[in-house]
């Protein structure tokens, strides 16, 4: 067993389970698989023989491990549970447009939505995002640019939400 005590595991979980779930749901598009991934990632954290170097290290480790675990799940495509009603029912949206934007984000390529999430939501710089994803900062910048352009195009294709994009000028 690893170096973390039960209390430390619980604390780590409460601080970061939400982030790991967001990454997993975004990449796997499937709530049951995303929940399984959360458990797997934190089990791996529990098995670590070395303590984390600090808050930044533990967060980065969880991001990279979550992403790798999702890739494993996608590789073993047959393991993915079939999408069902509950997948969407688990999410409630403040505005209808939020649900539509989430659906569009899910359609982006894996590397683009991951870069989008780390940079715009988690607040990592493009350099830090590049480190986490094992790529050059310039590559990440082009992914971010492409992701936003794709979202803009998709939003414009969508009549109801398209009006809002015109207002915000994207």
């Amino acid at each position, binding site marked *: 067993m690893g170096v973390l005590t*039960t209390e430390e595991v619980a604390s780590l979980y409460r601080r970061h*389970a939400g982030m790991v779930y967001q990454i997993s749901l975004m990449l796997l598009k499937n709530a*049951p698989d995303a929940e399984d991934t959360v458990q797997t990632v934190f089990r791996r954290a529990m098995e670590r023989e070395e303590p984390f170097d600090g808050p930044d290290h533990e967060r980065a480790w969880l991001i990279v491990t979550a992403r790798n675990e999702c890739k494993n799940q996608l590789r*073993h495509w047959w393991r993915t549970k079939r*999408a069902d009603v509950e997948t969407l029912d*688990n999410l409630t949206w403040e505005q209808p447009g939020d649900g539509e934007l989430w659906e569009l984000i899910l359609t982006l390529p894996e590397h683009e939505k991951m870069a989008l999430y780390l940079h715009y939501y988690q607040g990592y710089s493009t350099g830090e995002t590049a480190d986490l994803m094992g790529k050059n900062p310039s590559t990440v910048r082009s992914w971010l640019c492409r992701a936003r352009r794709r979202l803009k195009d998709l939003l414009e294709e969508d009549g109801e939400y398209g009006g809002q994009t015109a207002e915000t000028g994207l």
Partner: protein
Amino acid sequence: MEDKQLKQVFDQVKLSPEREEAMLADLLNKKKEVSGMKQANNRRRLPAAALVAAVLVVVLAGSAIAAGHFGRVNVVPKDQNIYGGAGSSYDIYGEYNQIPVESLSEEVLAYGKGLGEYDVVDLPFASWRECTAFLGLDLGGNSILEQLPQGEGGCYLDGERVSNYVHVGYYEETPVVARIVSSYQGERYSVDEEVTIRTEENYISGADTRMDTYGKVTSEDYVTPSGMAVKIVIDDMREAEFQTIRYIAHFSKDDALYMLQFFPNIESQSPGGLDELKEILDAYE
């Protein structure tokens, strides 16, 4: 779209507090179980004979559903369920050929461009025939299923419930697996059909599909008049929360692996359900 809109969306993607706490409790319980096992192992090593016996128990339990003409079907003991939850599951190993990537349509190949290392695409269609046309495959249809209204199975895509969709898995922009999912609603039953093909670029070994079961599981071999060998798994969930029986038929045909989930309507739970499933199986071209 502004940055705050993205942030607002991600803010709402979260587990409920109750679910998060339940998952944490489950995680911590497993930590205790593993710690307990480690301590026990440190105290006393199991003799080799006991280990052999334990393995035999697992193998015998796995053969509760025996191998058939179609391929091996194995029941994994409850504690080996890969999802870690209660209940059982079984793997399906199909005997069917992997098809050349080039035999898929240009459109399918085009969808892979620009995708990540591993990625999937789900696309809705109006009918099963349209799904096969999109893939560029000539799969024989089913004269009974194609007469039925569309069912409530399938999935949600872009917020819309769809009864027919194609799921394509890509590795480095190349399709490695495709699945057609269709849902039908009869008067006395509903049927969800899944047809899976794998391309020659798919190097993943092991089982084709894993299914979770929820009740008492038995199986039956059936051969259609045309000679198609079918393994039917019967998941009797009447004592579980679902209050129904589910029949799951597995067979391979035309370089594809088929799975039919047949659900008799709850109000018409009759032994005739299995016969109706067999009629559907007999109707495959």
